[in-house]
């Protein structure tokens, strides 16, 4: 069966520090991968998605970037965090072909001080 991992679960970082959040998927090949930010009362905002290694689409201009160095690895990064980057970050995957739903990871709670 498929599993999705995210780490760390929580993170407290100072303003201006770098960020690296990692997501890995097990039990599937060539998944579509997604990064969302979840804010209370605002639902899930799609930040990035990837349909293959090295292929990244950005949905919202921001202080963050994403990379997909391996088929089942998706990384969310920032060179210098802002206070507004605080939030709950979710990674998700879906099958490439056919009718498909997304499967979500446990999320990372990021607090920027």
């Amino acid at each position, binding site marked *: 069966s498929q599993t999705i991992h995210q780490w760390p679960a929580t993170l407290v970082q100072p303003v201006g520090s770098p960020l690296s959040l990692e997501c890995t998927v097990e039990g599937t090949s060539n998944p579509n991968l997604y990064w969302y930010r979840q804010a209370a*009362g*605002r*639902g899930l905002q799609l930040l990035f998605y990837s349909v293959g290694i090295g292929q990244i689409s950005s949905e919202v201009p921001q202080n963050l970037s994403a990379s997909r160095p391996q088929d089942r690895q998706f990384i969310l990064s920032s060179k210098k965090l802002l206070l507004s980057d605080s939030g709950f970050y*979710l990674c998700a995957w879906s099958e490439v072909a056919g*009718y498909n*739903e997304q499967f979500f990871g446990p999320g990372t709670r990021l607090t920027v001080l």
Partner: protein
Amino acid sequence: AQSVSQHNHHVILSEAASLELGCNYSYGGTVNLFWYVQYPGQHLQLLLKYFSGDPLVKGIKGFEAEFIKSKFSFNLRKPSVQWSDTAEYFCAVKPTTTSGTYKYIFGTGTRLKVLA
């Protein structure tokens, strides 16, 4: 732009009451539709989905949803809620086109609290 509206942001019900959560989307083409649930402290998980066929779909834990194409709606229902249904519920839409699409559009969520 494509969007999903969930009109009820907070709902409070007593156990055994009936539930209906509204979801409307704006997209003129074919869509796949989903309801997800997030229980306190847990992952988002799929409740049910609609791709084609019978517009009334049944999901886990006694939930069902009806796709009404003419109203661009996919409302979630449960005849009798339980305290354990306390959670946040998200409607999501995945537009489909001949060239394919990879994006899922989520509503802002509805927080349901069921009083024992």
